[in-house]
């Protein structure tokens, strides 16, 4: 891998899985269509050939069974990286995830780790069918015992997935489908910020725009549009939705005094609610304006024809930033 190398997120995730399987022979990769097909998005392409059917295998269509099996495999000392084919198809596994994946460590008084990674191609924006464009993060972030992360770029996708697989705790790994194919140049490296750490992807002092996953790029576009108008917006990529990097949120809120949070998920109890509440708790006296939330609407995710009317647009983000700045 040379510095010049260009990576898509699909390629970076594939490399991360490959390297994790290579570095730790307790790692398994399984799920629906992940082996022979290499996954419907090709994220697991070539892993079967590289590591054999004992470590990389296809399963029947049984999300609860897949995740439940991962729990049993953890008792047997295996680290499972399972794939839920699309966001909504992780819902059949929610009982296993909430009741067991998240609680087994506490239940066993720390005697049994749950080093399970649940990979979920998530979020919308790809003109997908119903149930193929949802943002399930709230269900997981609210569930104590889980960690939840989502990358916004190929290089960070590699790093976060390596960290997730190495983590002794269960990690829900949300992959922004709409960012699967854009390329990024650089070296795929494990080192660098892990889980629990957010990052500033654009500096600025006028306001802080907080986002994650698919929305980070849009926020950067918005920031670029704001610049000519004299508004230099800082953009934060949360990366880790649980645990949240509250120190970073506090610092940005204190330094800029104005915060906008952006996500695809519906407004009510979306991540923006937690970000807003934390920012108020940590930086109330520094806030010059209420935290603005730019999110999907409180309706089911719409069909392809309307999804761009549902997702936060660059215009809406720009508008919100202008409002908090001029508040």
């Amino acid at each position, binding site marked *: 891998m040379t510095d010049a190398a260009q990576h898509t997120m699909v390629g970076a995730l594939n490399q991360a899985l490959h390297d994790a399987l290579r570095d730790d022979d307790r790692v398994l990769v399984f799920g629906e269509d992940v082996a022979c*097909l290499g996954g419907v998005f090709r994220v697991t392409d070539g892993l079967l050939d590289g590591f054999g059917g004992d470590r990389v295998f296809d399963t*029947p269509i*049984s999300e609860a069974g897949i995740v439940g099996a991962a729990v049993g495999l953890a008792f047997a000392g295996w680290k499972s990286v399972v794939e839920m084919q699309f966001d909504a198809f992780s819902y059949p596994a929610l009982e296993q995830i909430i009741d067991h994946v998240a609680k087994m460590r506490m239940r066993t008084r720390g005697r049994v780790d749950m080093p399970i990674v649940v990979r979920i191609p998530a979020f919308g924006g790809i003109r997908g069918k119903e149930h193929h464009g949802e943002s399930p993060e709230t269900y997981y972030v609210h569930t104590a015992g889980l960690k939840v992360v989502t990358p916004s770029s190929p290089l960070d996708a590699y790093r976060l997935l390596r960290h997730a697989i190495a983590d002794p705790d269960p990690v829900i790994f949300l992959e922004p489908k709409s960012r699967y194919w854009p390329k990024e140049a650089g070296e795929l490296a494990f080192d660098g910020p892990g889980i629990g750490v957010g990052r500033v992807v654009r500096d600025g002092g006028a306001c802080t725009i907080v986002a994650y996953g698919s929305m980070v790029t849009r926020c950067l576009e918005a920031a670029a549009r704001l610049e000519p108008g004299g508004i230099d917006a800082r953009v934060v990529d949360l990366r880790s939705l649980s645990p949240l990097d509250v120190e970073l949120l506090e610092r940005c809120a204190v330094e800029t005094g104005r915060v906008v949070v952006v996500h695809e998920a519906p407004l009510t109890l979306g991540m923006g609610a937690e970000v807003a509440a934390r920012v108020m708790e940590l930086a109330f006296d520094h806030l010059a304006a209420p935290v603005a939330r730019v999110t999907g*609407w409180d309706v089911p995710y719409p069909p392809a024809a*309307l999804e761009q009317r549902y997702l936060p647009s660059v215009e809406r983000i720009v508008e919100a930033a202008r409002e908090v700045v001029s508040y």
Partner: protein
Amino acid sequence: MEAPEHWAGTEPERVLAHDGTPVGDTDVGLSDDQLRAALRWMILARRLDAECIALQRQGELTVYPGFEGQEAAQIGSALALGADDFVWPTFRELAAAIVRGVDPVQYLWYHRGTWHGGPYDPRATRFGPICIPVATQLCHAVGYAIGVAKDGSDAVALGYIGDGATSEGDFHEAMNLAAVFRAPAVVFVQNNGWAISVPTRRQTAGEIWKRAEGYGVPGVRVDGNDVLAVYRATADAVARARRGDGPTLIEALTYRIGAHSTADDAGRYRDPAEVEVARRFDPIVRFRAWMSASGRIDEDGVASFEDDAERFANDVRASLVAEGSPPAEWMFDWAYAEPPATLDRQRREALG
């Protein structure tokens, strides 16, 4: 390979041999006109399927899951239903939909990304919304069946499901509930050998129809490419349900000739030779052979069906491509019976 591997094991019920020669009583309760209508539907359906794939290639549909090879399974079963019976489909039952009178253009709104589920009226058409989370629709079918029975109606609910979806918990819960409540339901499994890239043998170690006994209900394995056998097996199951004798599990052995969908590349996991073998068992060729051999249709008759199919496909295309985008209001109009104040504010923000 003699035949697709998932057809091995118990011999399925069959009326016509693969070459169309009768091996059972061909009087399954369909008049000659109805038999011709069945053949016509099969020819129309296949032509429409090809048109949809073309429409997708041209960007008029987002993703399209074809059903080539499954015409007998879908049409034979759909024709066995009465006007009041209700179909609970997956995402692959366009052939059954048109037989049930669903407007194909409205149906295709779904694959065009215009609206979820299919905007046709599911109550009026007695054809449920296109259902994506596999196996979940069976629970709806069973609940519906329980409901109409409470109203003293003799209507039956038929739920379609694929081989892969039978691995889901909802398949099991629906089967068990149907059996316990003796619901007037028919669970029709189209075992087409594949669940995206996973062959039936890696989906289950048993024969799907054999699961019936564990629920205490009748199970039937039928040649899903034999439209007469499919019709008879479904008609028997429907009659049993109407009589109040409860549900039936039908496994129809068929084959997915195409890829899982236009987004799928079957070449990555499936030997083309297998498809060639499967093509030898084409359900339309078989039925047509018997129909002509038995003097029920001649070349001209078939030709006229093909003309109808051509017109049908062209009409669907014409109306579909003329469809515009739905208004953004639709996102807000039906989330709730009366939108809460908070949502109204969002609506104004989104549309204003």
